[in-house]
């Protein structure tokens, strides 16, 4: 018998000259959130809003452009034409199989792709009244709103082209491009597009794949039906609660509250502190997921609870873990090491950005200001 070959990349080497992901030195999009993070097509009042956390320590105005990408792209929608053609072909084939003679109108998809918003955003520091330290504040990026009417008809397209991702929804996205002094950053943020009531496609599609929601639409199907809970079909962004800190890098140190008045936390140059973000209990949402066993193509419904992670960004100094995630780093906290000399251009002020994410596209952010002194 032939052998299975496993190849593992084993190259390791030092890379000291590369910029550090968590250190914000130029124009960066640190996060984009969509609120709510799930677009439920069967709820006609639905609208979602995209917002971005954009910072640039160098300041200057930025050009902003939002664009909607109604297909699932892995290339920031650069391949829209190709993907749309493929998805249309699949949707047509599925529609013909489900209901021969059905014709689909793809006009809404093309119309949705033309949804866009352009503008200019100024850095906070452009306001002469603000202190120099405020240069670290994010840009006021205009929000990009998608209402139900804007994407009318996309649900049919999603249903037939991807079967709603077997219940996990389709993933259209918003593409944000910010440009400043020739430096451009493109960002893709998906929104889960699905149905609150999956029974709408029960029997015809999921039933064919082995999933029967209760009550059964195919009465003589011997398989047990699954209790789908439409009340938990939605999703919400996580919410940060108060962050805490401790001196030194030991995880066993006593946690203390940050200054109640929002003033910067004093930190000695070169010192190490540990920072701990916390979330409200409601941020850890429970939900149902649909699993497939490959060998049998059997589809199962499972209960799950969100796990939250935090991405860390800092304007000076060093963050030990760019991403903290209990699954990976055992806890959400990490160590911050202050620069050995206070940053002079901000009067010693350093901002630590924390971007929290769940596993279904939920996002939020907060920050902690530190005042570095000799």
């Amino acid at each position: 018998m032939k052998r299975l070959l496993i190849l593992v990349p084993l190259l390791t080497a030092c890379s000291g000259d590369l910029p550090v992901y968590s250190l914000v030195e130029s124009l960066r999009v640190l996060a984009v959130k969509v609120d709510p993070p799930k677009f439920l097509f069967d709820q006609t009042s639905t609208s979602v809003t995209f917002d971005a956390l954009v910072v640039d320590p160098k300041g200057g105005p930025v050009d902003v452009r939002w664009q909607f990408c109604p297909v699932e792209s892995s290339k920031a929608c650069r391949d829209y034409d190709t993907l749309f053609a493929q998805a249309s072909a699949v949707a047509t084939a599925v529609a013909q199989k489900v209901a021969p003679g059905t014709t689909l109108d793809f006009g809404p998809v093309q119309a949705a792709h033309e949804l866009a918003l352009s503008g200019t955003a100024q850095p906070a520091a452009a306001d002469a009244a603000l202190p120099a330290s405020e240069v670290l504040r994010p840009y006021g990026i205009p929000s990009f709103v998608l209402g139900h009417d804007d994407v009318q008809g996309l649900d049919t397209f999603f249903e037939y082209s991807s079967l709603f991702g077997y219940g996990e929804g389709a993933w259209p996205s918003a593409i944000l491009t910010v440009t400043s002094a020739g430096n451009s950053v493109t960002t893709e943020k998906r929104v889960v597009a699905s149905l609150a009531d999956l029974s709408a496609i029960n029997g015809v599609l999921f039933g064919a794949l082995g999933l029967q929601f209760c009550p059964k639409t195919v009465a003589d199907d011997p398989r047990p039906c699954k209790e789908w809970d439409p009340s938990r079909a939605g999703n919400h962004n996580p919410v940060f609660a108060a962050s805490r800190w401790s001196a030194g890098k030991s995880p066993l140190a006593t946690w203390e509250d940050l200054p109640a008045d929002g003033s910067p936390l004093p930190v000695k140059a070169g010192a190490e502190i540990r920072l701990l973000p916390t979330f409200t209990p409601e941020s850890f949402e429970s939900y149902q997921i649909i699993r497939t066993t490959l060998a049998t193509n059997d589809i199962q419904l499972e209960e799950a609870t969100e796990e939250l992670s935090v991405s860390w960004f800092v304007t000076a100094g060093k963050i030990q873990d760019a991403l903290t995630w209990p699954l990976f780093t055992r806890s959400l906290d990490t160590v911050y090491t202050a620069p050995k000399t206070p940053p002079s251009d901000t009067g010693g002020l350093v901002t630590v950005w924390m971007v929290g994410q769940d596993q279904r596209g939920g996002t939020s952010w907060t920050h902690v200001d530190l005042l570095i002194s000799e």
Partner: protein
Amino acid sequence: MHSRLLVAALVLCHAGPALAAIEQQNRPKAKAPEPPAAAPVLTKAPELIEFATAAYPTELLARGVGGDAVLLIDIDERGLVDAVQVVSATEPAFGDAAMTAATRFVFSPAEIDGKPGAIRIEYRYVFTPEAPVPDAVAGEVTPASQLPVNLAGVVKEAGTRRPVVGAVIELDGTAIAETDAGGRFEARGVGLGKHRLKASSRAHDAYETEAEVRPGERFEVTLYLVKRSGDPFETVVRTRNERQEVTRVQLDRQEVQKVPGTFGDPLRAIENLPGLARVPGGLGGALLVRGTPPADTAVFIDGVQIPLLYHFFGLTSVINPEFLDAIDFYPGGFGARFGRATGGAVEVKSRDVTCEDWHGVGEIGVLLSRGYLCAPAGDWSVAAAGRRSYIDLLLPFVLDRVQNNDPGQGSATVSPIFWDYQVKAEHRFGTHDIDIFAFGSDDSLKVITTGSAENVNFNLRLHTNFHRMQVRDRWKIGEHTTLTSSLTPGLERQGFSVGSDLGSATDFGVDIWSLEWREDLTHKVNDQLTLNAGLDHQFGWADIGITFPLSNSLRRFPAGTFDYTQTQSASYGASDKSQGYWVEAVFTPAAPLKIIGGLRLDYFDFESVGHLQAAPRGTVRYEVVPGTTIKGAYGLYYKLPQPQFLLRSPIGNPELQPERAHHFILGLEHKVTDFIDVSLEGYFNLRQNLRAFSDASVARGGKYVKQVYDNDGNGRTYGLELLLRHLATPDGMFYGWIAYTLSRSLVQDRAHAQLATPDAEGGGGFNGARAGGGVTDWYLSPFDQTHILTVVGQWTLPWGLEAGFRFRLTSGDPFTPLDRGAAYFDADAGAYRIDASMVKRSSDRLPLFQQLDVRVDKTFTFDLWRFAVYIEVLNAYNAHNVESYQYSYDFKTRVPLTLLPIVPTLGVRGEF
């Protein structure tokens, strides 16, 4: 006492007339018939400058029989005796004795047309007995054969304790005996008192000691001779093997065991031959033959295919050097005997276990240790060997010391852990030579974290092992017919997982039970025709379990890395029943021409999906003039894609067809001198039906499933290979080679995932990874290296020293410069992604690679054992070779990664 001395002296007297007769009777002859137009002229005859005395056959001496022996002696261009034949002898014993002595003659070089050249001479060795003398005590004549043996002994090689055959024993400057096959000698009637006893052999340093013969006693002695040159642990017997395949390079273990940069592993030396691309990383560990992936080259041990030739990181092979006999490397055009490979083939022949006494080898190095033991066990001989690495124990110690004090810094490094074993028992039953060979290997990785990385909850598990037990019968059916049968059950296990201690994001495990059955029949019909045939079956049964991140069609929302909550699992059972049948005829219609034609039939049966393939193969060799041969070959080769690609959707496609390759080879060989060969070959390999990604959906079992792969891929490689090789000389002073490869390797498939391929104008663009899309344009294979130069040299120096070097200069590997792609920030994954569809695939190369490795061995030889110390330095002048690039998080900048700095390693080795 006096009379006994005289008897001993008589033996010496016989050498005198023989020596005197040399000059009159040497008649140089041309070594081989030459064309009249180019007849060479002997301009200077060889002269005997170092004579060796033949031992007078005891029985003939006792009977007073004299006579002579006429010899034909082949002398090489340096005056050394290459071969001796007995033309005639008045007594057979004279012929044997004279021939043995003549092998130790040294001549001044003959000159032919004014230049030193090889020559054959006729030589007559005269034996003249002298009459027995009266016994001084008894006053009577005592025949020599009736005198008592009062001096006897055995001559062994120091360190190995192997008997030295044909050593000349001198007593007070007079040759009195020659050792037999067991290294033993004896002398009768040696005079009483102290004598200088000397033993000498051509391959050993002479040894002299004092022997005191006392009345009524028999003086017994064991003499240990130190091997003069070459590997002190081995006897180097170097001959040119008869060539059949167009391209086959045979490496003798002794010859390549100390090639620098190979950690003393002869199997690693293969990597230095033409046709082999350098393995990225600087260490080695894979066979990249003529631009093909490692999986296209099959490795056999005594005909048994093994899954793994090298341990992880390529530090050593999985077979202990003491178990190796010869290594045949076929970069292409190999015969019908080998199947299921479309690139090259490597056949490792294990060594016969023939130890008559206990013999062992132990080696302790910085990175690993190994041992070997051979012992007689009744009618059987049994040998066992084992090896274990301990890099995982040393690495944390090293990392802790190189880690800087920056609290934010840490590292996660993977270290290999490996061991292997071999046990072989061998016995001869009449015309059957039976051996049982069990061998296996185990490799795993260990994650070593330091500094802040210790906080990371990260597990990487990679574990693979295999075990084989071959039962083989080599049956000599008749004078012209042999049949080798072997049956080899085996077990192989592989496991791989990535995740945390809470769960795995990816997990893969497979157990494979296998059975291989080979029959190899050889029948020599006559001097012109030899027929070979055989069968080569492989059966395997696998249990496979897979857990992996949800694929695009069965997915969860993009999130961070190693999310064990977003996985799916599957288990598979798979069976492989592959049968192979082959025939081959070796036809030599006239001496300079050899034609080999073969046909192989393979029936591939994986999961009951069968494919029957016929593969014709042929080779022609024609010796245009003595020493110069032109050669050509064509062969068709098939192999199934690797099993993981043959599993059911969405993992693979069980309906994949066998991949095939056409090999076309044309070349020239020339024997420059007795020890220097040069070979030049041009080749073109056309690979078809290669596995390619496919996003198409196909109807299978009543369902539409992803095709995942199809056979639309193609590959082609062409190039020139030059090998200039200096064989190990009989005195073992030097060997080495220069290997140069000029090649180009191209592939054509479907772009997958993020990477697209260049279009005809070179602008790039998405090009058909999806259903219905065509294949890409040709682009450079990741294993393409335009220039590959390797120079190897090894010298034997005085004082037990050996020194060698290996220098490599190769083109850098192709790579796709991702910093020229379009990067964007994926806000859901929290990471930048690269859209490389705007970048030409494999459109750039790493810088030129260069590396010098050196090794020095010092051997101390004692009577009963030997001890060696060696130092091996990899990348001796610390060349900063770029092995890859690391990109910034936003793919805007990159920095070179250099992996292997200067690495000195030390080791000690003992043998008894």
